[in-house]
């Protein structure tokens, strides 16, 4: 099926994306050649003009500025604001300029390549840095990224910048008050959505719990155990902690009170008084309001290590 035609029989142009018409196509009768058509067609621009074009030098300056901020500013948030373009925008932009030189690029193609080639620089850069001495470090990343951006920018400048279609050069925004208000509503919506979700909530139906742990410590001559209690209960909770060695029970804490999220640790020394057939030590946690043993852990100590 043929493409839709205009009443005069000519093909109706779509909103084309880098499309090319068949060779031999003619200008419609009466149409004028755009002023920059020669440039669009790839005509050479003088080297003097190329070197004066500031865009890629701005990229180089931007890369150096970003690198300087990373080195000099200790605030992570500020560094992040400069590192995102340094890692995810400038390398791709510069490589695109180097590869495409004077050729036509739609702005969406430029955007796609800027992001895509920035990722290419990061992925291949990580493989490269992996084999150099020192590996992937902050300094080596900075040097690599700046080198990629500067070299690609110089190559792009020497070869001539990628040209955009005439319409994309006239990109300007006209923001009305209503537009600004609506954008503000959108921004507030997005911001408040994150604010709502970042704030942890109480969860009355979540099942709280407590954890008990015990690990041997000390030495063979002066053995001891570390016992910890962690409360992730919904309310402040009172516990009783016992330690059983052989046939002897020892109260470690008879009224241990912990708030939700609070934890405590006991270092309980064990005296070497007599030998025993078993070196197993048992810690038992009782919780107020709960019948029976709530938590129980054990530690296997050297057989001669037993307290009184």
């Amino acid at each position: 099926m043929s493409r839709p035609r205009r009443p005069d029989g000519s093909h109706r142009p779509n909103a084309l994306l880098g499309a090319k018409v068949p060779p031999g196509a003619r200008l419609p009768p009466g149409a004028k050649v755009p002023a920059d058509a020669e440039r669009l067609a790839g005509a050479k621009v003088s080297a003097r003009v190329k070197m004066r074009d500031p865009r890629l030098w701005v990229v180089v300056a931007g890369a150096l500025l970003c690198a300087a901020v990373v080195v000099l500013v200790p605030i992570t948030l500020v560094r992040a604001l400069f590192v995102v373009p340094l890692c995810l925008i400038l390398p791709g932009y510069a490589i695109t300029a180097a590869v495409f030189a004077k050729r036509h690029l739609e702005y969406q193609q430029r955007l796609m390549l800027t992001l895509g080639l920035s990722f290419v620089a990061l992925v291949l850069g990580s493989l490269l840095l992996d084999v150099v001495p020192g590996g992937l470090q902050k300094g080596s990343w900075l040097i690599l990224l700046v080198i990629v951006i500067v070299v690609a920018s110089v190559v792009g400048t020497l070869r001539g910048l990628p040209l955009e279609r005439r319409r994309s050069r006239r990109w300007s925004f006209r923001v009305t008050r209503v537009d600004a208000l609506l954008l503000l509503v959108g921004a507030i919506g997005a911001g408040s959505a994150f604010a709502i979700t970042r704030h942890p909530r109480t969860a009355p139906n979540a099942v709280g719990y407590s954890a008990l742990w015990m690990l041997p410590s000390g030495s063979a001559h002066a053995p001891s155990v570390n016992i910890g209690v962690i409360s992730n209960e919904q309310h402040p909770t009172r516990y009783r902690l016992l330690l059983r060695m052989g046939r002897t029970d020892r109260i470690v804490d008879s009224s241990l009170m912990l708030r939700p999220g609070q934890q405590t640790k006991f270092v309980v020394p064990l005296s070497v008084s007599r030998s025993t057939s078993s070196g197993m030590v048992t810690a038992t946690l009782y919780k107020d309001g709960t019948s029976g043993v709530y938590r129980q852990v054990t530690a296997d100590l050297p057989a001669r290590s037993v307290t009184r």
Partner: protein
Amino acid sequence: MSTITARRRREIAEVTAAVPSPPVAVRKSSDGSLGGVPLVAAIVGVGLVLCSIADSLSRATLAPTPWIYWAGVALITAPVFYRLCSPLPTTRERLALVCMLGLALYAVKLMRAPFGFTQPDEYPHLFNVEQILRYHHLFHSDSLLSITADYPGLEGATSALAMVTGMSATAAGIVVIGAARLMMMVGLFGLIGGISRSSRVAGLGAAIYAGNANFLLFGVQFAYESLALPLLVVILACIAARDRARASDSRAWTIVTLLCIAALVPTHHLTSYLLIIILVTLTVIQLTSKRFSVAAPMWPIALFTVVLTLAWLVVAASATVGYLSPVAGAAFESTLHTLTGESPPRAAFSGGGVGANQVNDLGEKVVGLASIAITLAAVVGGLIYARRRYRFRDQPLTLLIVLSSVGYFGATALRVAPAAWEIGNRLAEFLFVGVGFVIGSISIDAFRVRGRRWPVHAVFAAGAATIVVGGAILGWPANTRLANPLVVVADGHRIQSETYEVGRWVGSHLAPGTRFAAPEADAATLLLYGRGYVATNATDYADFILQAPTLQGYEIALWRSKHLQYAVVDLRVRSTDNAAGYFFGVHPPAGPTDELLPLSVATKFTKLPAPEVFDSGNIRVFNLQGAG
């Protein structure tokens, strides 16, 4: 002005004709105004608030209706589709809308887990980044999903941001995946626009892609495929641009295509293999087409990809074959068994998880099924239209993408076979690009109606929003679509779930590299926060022993041969579900109470005797060193 030769004049004529003279309506909106973007942005903002409210209520265990969430998703998507249907927006506005859609839905994923990554594949990848930050080199082993360490593209890129800024690996990962999502949307716009030569088709096609089942959650998890798939789309967009470029431009497009392929191969195995299939198919089509001599040859790119992928497989990722072949084999067997009736098909809406909470609202089921029906109807209509509009013989890539829309339904059918579910799910994610293109193609003629157009646009927007919402319903288990309680406030203080607590306890009290046998969910936190070596059901069939009520006698010797020092017993059935196992248990009405394994599962280790060093009620850690 220099003298213009006849040849140059012809080139100028080509370019001038290629610059579209926009229709009157487009001219009106291309005067620098923002078109419909501000209004759509405001509505999207409201949609995000609804999603965050639903997530917060869910995290607060107040059991909100899921329709708050879906209303939010619909508010994000429908206005974008409605505006994209209109002939008024400029190409820039369409691109802005498509990017807004992609990023807004990414924000929905972020709001679901604001305290860190909680999706299954995110733990091993985040661990890999932390290993790079710690040791300054790639390829450190990852016991939970060892294959991820052999494809360090995502982790390498993330480590750059984390190292240079000093931000956490999680924050760097969020930025990287956000940039990848943006690249995905721009790449889809470029790909579909490149083959359709229409920004309207490009906008609608790229936006429709949000209807694939993995787009909302799985596709933006911090995992290698989330970067690889956008790279694949960019590669295809470059190939589409290369096919239409002049010979002199073609070389530049070839270079960037090869660069992107060089980055894709060390990023993800399956995506690399899919790219090989695409490129080899394109080469075959091109070689059998009468016009192949005038198009840029595809075989050098295909050859480059094959050689690079094989080289990576041999040199760096030889474990890939052992990793993928059992999955593919099981999927093949399961499909055969399902087809022959030897095994029952997988129940619809059962999700990918285990345990309780696999419940779908009836309305959700209806929307899920409606999305499939609408997609099918739209693709059939789109195929009829595409057959008339595109000359496939000259455009092999277009043919391939159109065929992929048909293949999407084949991949969806694979979800019926239990073991083929995952492969079908992944394939569908790739093939949905074709669905987007085919449905987007309808817009050229379908919206060219006499009289009022807005009802047609509204119907299309509603249908498209249904595809997106239904796709999300189909793509993720019901119990983990909304946020679950991971960190909550109790009596004014923060408390965290048992699974996280055991991971952090191990990180504080046991040496890095300590070896554990553990269920999947606990293994993830032991790996990430405990820096332990983990043996799971996926790696060592650990659940078989961990969940047995008694020991047969050989188990401890077997684990000792693997140098495992600790066994982690989790009595909750959902601990083996690597999507749902991380969160607090809940009381009704927030959800069903946890289903528990018998206590003998834990006491069998006590009888050895093996010291029990940690007890949080459901989770017990046993020291196997020296145990009988």
